Each structure stands twice: as structure tokens, then as C-alpha cells.
């Protein structure tokens, strides 16, 4: 919800909580974030960490997320570890990670057991087929959303890299390590050249 006086709110942001969260608080906060996160945990993480608990300012959160997005692997998992360890060292990282992954993993294991028993039931088969079609649609829409900034910037070379990666992985089904080994340096070289060109 937009604040009635955004300039005043930005000038005097609510003070951060001076008491760093304990291990149980970290676990509980990330468990709650994770279990409310249908279709994207990030929104809930930002809300809980920045607005609800005031453990980080919005800028700190964005910076931390940028780092975690930049590193490989599940971004939000990286975020939980980096966030937890900032307050309580390695134990804090483990607590936040366990909260994020543990409870939904237990739920998913239960679903997997159900699927193993009832996966051949026709009604379930049909329903899951419908969900997979919709899930494919969601992925495709995410691709278009992410692509638009490149299209608007007319970053033709980067778009070519994107298409090449798509062809190599999606159509030719080549192994990911080889594709990255070739595409990453090319993409870095293009980005570097463009940076120098605009600077």
C-alpha cells in the first residue's frame, strides 16, 4: 500500500530493531516466509525482514538479494544463509536455511509419498496434467517479462546469446556445464565491451 506521504516516510524510516534475531526467531521467521510463499518466496521474505521484523533496511535487503541473485543456485536459499549468518554466524545461517527449506520439504515429501501411491488415479492424473500446462505458461510469461528490458535497450548481442542458450539447452539438449563454459565468457565479453562503449 502506498504511504500517504512518501517523502516524509522516506526521510524518517522506521528504526531497525536493535536486537539481532536469535536462532529460534530466525528459524521461525524463515519457516513462515517459506510456507506463505506460493509462487515466489521473495515477496514474503522482503515483507517479513524489512517491514515486519525490521531486521534490515530496504536498501540492505536489495543489496543482499542482488548478491544472492548473482551467485548460482536457488537465490532464496542463498539469501537465508547470508541473512542468518550476518546476525548469528554459521549457526544463524543454518537456522534460517533449516526454517526456509525444512517445513516445506517435509510437506513435499508427504506429497511425493501420496503421488507414489495415487499417481495413477485418473482424476489426479488429469488435474496434474492441467497444472503442468499452466506451470509451463507461467515460465513462458516470466521469460517475456525478463526479456523486455533487453529488447527495449536493443541489446541485440545479448539477445543473441539468450537465443543461443535456448537453442543449445532447449532444442539440442546439450549438457549445461558445456553450454555455460562457452556462453558465459562470450556474454561477459559482450557486456564488458558495451560497458566500455557507453562509459
Amino acid at each position, binding site marked *: 500500500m502506498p504511504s500517504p506521504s512518501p517523502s516524509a516516510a522516506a526521510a524518517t524510516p522506521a528504526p531497525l530493531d536493535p536486537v539481532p534475531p536469535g536462532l529460534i526467531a530466525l528459524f521461525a521467521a524463515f519457516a513462515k516466509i517459506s510456507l506463505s510463499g506460493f509462487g515466489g518466496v521473495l515477496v514474503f521474505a522482503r515483507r517479513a525482514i524489512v517491514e515486519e521484523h525490521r531486521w534490515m533496511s530496504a536498501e540492505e535487503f536489495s543489496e543482499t538479494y542482488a548478491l544472492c541473485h548473482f551467485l548460482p543456485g536457488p537465490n532464496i536459499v542463498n539469501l537465508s544463509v547470508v541473512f542468518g549468518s550476518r546476525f548469528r554466524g*554459521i549457526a544463524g545461517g543454518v537456522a534460517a536455511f533449516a526454517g526456509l527449506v525444512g517445513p516445506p520439504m517435509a510437506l513435499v515429501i508427504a506429497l511425493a509419498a501420496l503421488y507414489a501411491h495415487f499417481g495413477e488415479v485418473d482424476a489426479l492424473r488429469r488435474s496434474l496434467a492441467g497444472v503442468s500446462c499452466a506451470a509451463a505458461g507461467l515460465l513462458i510469461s516470466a521469460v517475456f517479462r525478463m526479456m523486455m528490458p533487453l529488447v527495449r535497450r536493443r541489446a541485440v548481442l545479448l539477445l543473441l546469446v539468450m537465443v543461443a542458450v535456448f537453442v543449445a539447452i532447449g532444442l539440442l539438449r546439450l549438457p549445461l556445464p558445456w553450454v555455460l563454459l562457452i556462453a558465459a565468457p562470450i556474454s561477459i565479453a559482450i557486456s564488458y565491451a558495451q560497458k566500455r562503449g557507453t562509459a
Partner: protein
Amino acid sequence: MNSEPSPLFALISTFALLSLLAVGGANAAVPEMHRIAVDVHHWMTETQFADAFAISQLSPGPNVLIVTLIGYAVAGVAGALGATVAMCVPTAVLAYVVSRRLSRSGASRWPAVIQTALVPLSIGLMAASGLIVAQAADRNWHAVLLTVIVAVLAAATRLNPLWLLLAGAVLGFAGLI
């Protein structure tokens, strides 16, 4: 003893490596998971893989939990736990080390060049994920139509994705897909 190498070991080593290669997050790693689980090791059928993706999207929690389902299909609960931990821990350790180093040196600015460079890789991988899930899921023109409609609705509106997934479930249950 089995003459074949233990599937649990293959599972853990596979996902531990993938953890460090998953540029753009778990959904961008879906094509490689599919290649390994369906094409290379035949751990799952095409349909089981599409179902696993569907269940992981329907469940709360991070997208990485598709790995839990693949692990369960291979080696039960041990496989589920092993695969999930293997997919998370290497990159988590890397994130921990990098964030420590950054806060110590005080340099929080990221090399913007590399960040820019990773964007097209992530998008290309996500597009491949979309294609692979669509190929596994869309078995007739009704299904393709549903995928296209969901893609357009999700791009054009701010509908919660969960509603679109549930709409897919209802249409499927009704026998329309």
C-alpha cells in the same frame, strides 16, 4: 551389493554439481534436471517429471523443492533429503564465503559487467525450461491453448500465479485438457 553405482550417490553428486551451475536459480536449472533425470539416468518418465514440476509449483516454499521430488522418485525419503541438501549446500557455502569477504573488504558493489552478462544466460535457460515443461505437459491442442492463455494472463495481469495453477487443475480434473 548392486553392480551398478548406487543411485543415491549419483543423485547427490549430480545435484551438488548442478547447485554451482544453476545460473538464474532453480527454475533455470530445470532443463538440466530433466536431461539428467529423464534422458540420462531414466529415473523418471516424461510425465512423472512434468508432474513433479507441477507439484513443486503448487507447494509453498522455494522452487528448488522440485529436487526433493526427483530425489524421492529415485531413492525414497533418503533420496529426497540427499538431493535437496546436495542442491542447496554447495551454493549456500559459496554465498556465505562471498558475503563474508565482501562485508570485510567493505566492497558491496558487484561487478556490474558479470551481472549484465548473466541476464541473457538466465533468460535463455528459463525459456528452455518453459519449452521442456510444455513439451512434457502439452499432449493435445487443448493443453497448448491452456499454456498460451496462462502465459498471456500472467504477463498481462497481476493475478497470483497460484490461481492460474489451480485453474489448470480444475480444467484438467474436468477432463478438458
